[in-house]
């Protein structure tokens, strides 16, 4: 299992999103700034700061739903459908304690009926699709209430 994109989230039992933090003013940005050679330089997005150095920080695992929806039609390419026929999936924008809202798919098996503005969700890592290298994973938001009910 390999993350579909490098450096955006940790894996393991308690996965977390990775963000870039300005070393001067501590402003965090997600997605993180790519560190690969030739990648765009980091410029702090805070207009009061001219920081160009960043370090990597983990964001809180839990946040609150800002809003949510689903995709009932198969999105166009470059989206890669995980199944044929297409299975609808839910999406949530989640407000984290670090003061930003991060968009993600909702964990497998959960739909809009399991969500509510303000509800608590937790980051999980699941399979997005399978390619020639095997399973490719992505971060997703899982409703905490549902999780605790089944625990």
């Amino acid at each position, binding site marked *: 299992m390999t993350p579909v994109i490098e450096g955006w989230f940790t894996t393991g039992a308690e996965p977390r999103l990775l963000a870039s933090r300005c070393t001067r003013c*501590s402003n965090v940005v997600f997605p993180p700034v790519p560190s690969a050679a030739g990648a*765009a330089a980091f410029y702090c997005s805070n207009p009061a700061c001219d920081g160009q150095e960043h370090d990597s920080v983990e964001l809180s695992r839990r946040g609150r739903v*800002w809003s*949510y929806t689903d995709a009932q039609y198969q999105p166009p390419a470059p989206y890669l459908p995980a199944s044929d026929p297409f299975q609808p999936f839910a999406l949530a924008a989640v407000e984290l304690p670090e003061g930003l*809202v991060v968009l993600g*798919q909702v964990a497998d098996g959960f739909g809009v009926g399991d969500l509510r503005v303000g509800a608590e969700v937790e980051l999980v890592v699941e399979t997005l699709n399978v390619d020639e290298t095997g399973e490719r994973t992505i971060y997703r938001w899982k409703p905490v209430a549902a999780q605790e009910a089944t625990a």
Partner: protein
Amino acid sequence: MSVVIAGAGMHPWGKWGRDFREYGVHAAREALADSGIAWADVDLVVGGETVRNGYAGYVAGSTFAQALGWNGARIATSYAACATGAQAIDTARARILAGMSEVALVVGADTTPKGFLAPNAGERWNDPDWLRFRLLGMTNPAYFALYARRRMDLYGATSEDFAQVKVKNARHGLANPYARFRKESSVAEVLASPMVSDPLHLLDICATSDGAAAVVLTSADYAKRHGIAAPVTVAAVSTITPTFPNTVIDMPLLSTDSSAVTGVPERTFKEAIGQAAYEEAGIDPADVDVAEVYDLSTALELDWIEDLQLCKRGEAEALLRAGDTSLGGRIPVNPSGGLACFGEAVPAQAIAQVCELTWQLQGRAEGRQVEGAKVGITANQGLFGHGSSVILSV
């Protein structure tokens, strides 16, 4: 000194897949005819760039100038996503205000593909517009649905409210000769249409269309000297960027700015777009008689009504239910029929909003006239920090 609209013209919206030049030239000639000014007297052409029509689309100002026959005018091309047309108008206005141009022709035209708007081909792992599809399957309607759902959970909006926006706009657009969809709609019909992104049904979401719009701008002084009939004053053109931190998730991004360092801003981006226009025009929201707002979805119209301070936050449904935003109501919204009746033709749309308000303020919006309208406002927002609001007055 002020800048006026001396003429407005459009090509009807539709879906024909023809060359965008054809639509643009039609709209330009109609605007010139409306103004009574000859093409030879135009000394500036500003085109709204279209990104789906190859090189000719990237240099739209030049493309339209050439199609009308090179006349030696200065040219410029603007691209600002949904705000493209307003930015083109702003460019023309600035040159006229500086005394460097007398007559400017602003044109936007587009030909659009069927279905969801998708990013250009190729793998682009640093492009958020590509990543949102590849990693999340996040379409444009999914963003609209996030805003819609928030209204439901926070303010008690219902699917029937959203459908009622479509019903209202469909009725408004019935008599508009430029509208693509001219057919009554019902709440039941909207609710029976397929769910695209919960809570938005297919009929809650605007289509993509072909179309073109154009305006001829001059100084007020030029209009007076040349006896232009019923010029409409451009009182404000706001094309501001967000102010950090932008805390409302914005298409095509995967996250917002963090408010941790600076705190939550006084106004959201969309609120700020309208506020900047009001300040530039020196008027209050209470002075507005008619509004043309970007109803990419039915629910988004309700957001805009509040963003433009036409009512308090969370009260747009009450306004809608009372009929205040219908023709004949306190503050009619989208008398043209809006995107619900047009579908979106990106580089033309913000100009089309201005065309509609021009006709409204001149009392020429046959079959959809807001009686006695003196002040109108437009609003839209697009990708990557672009948005605009134009205020016209007579």
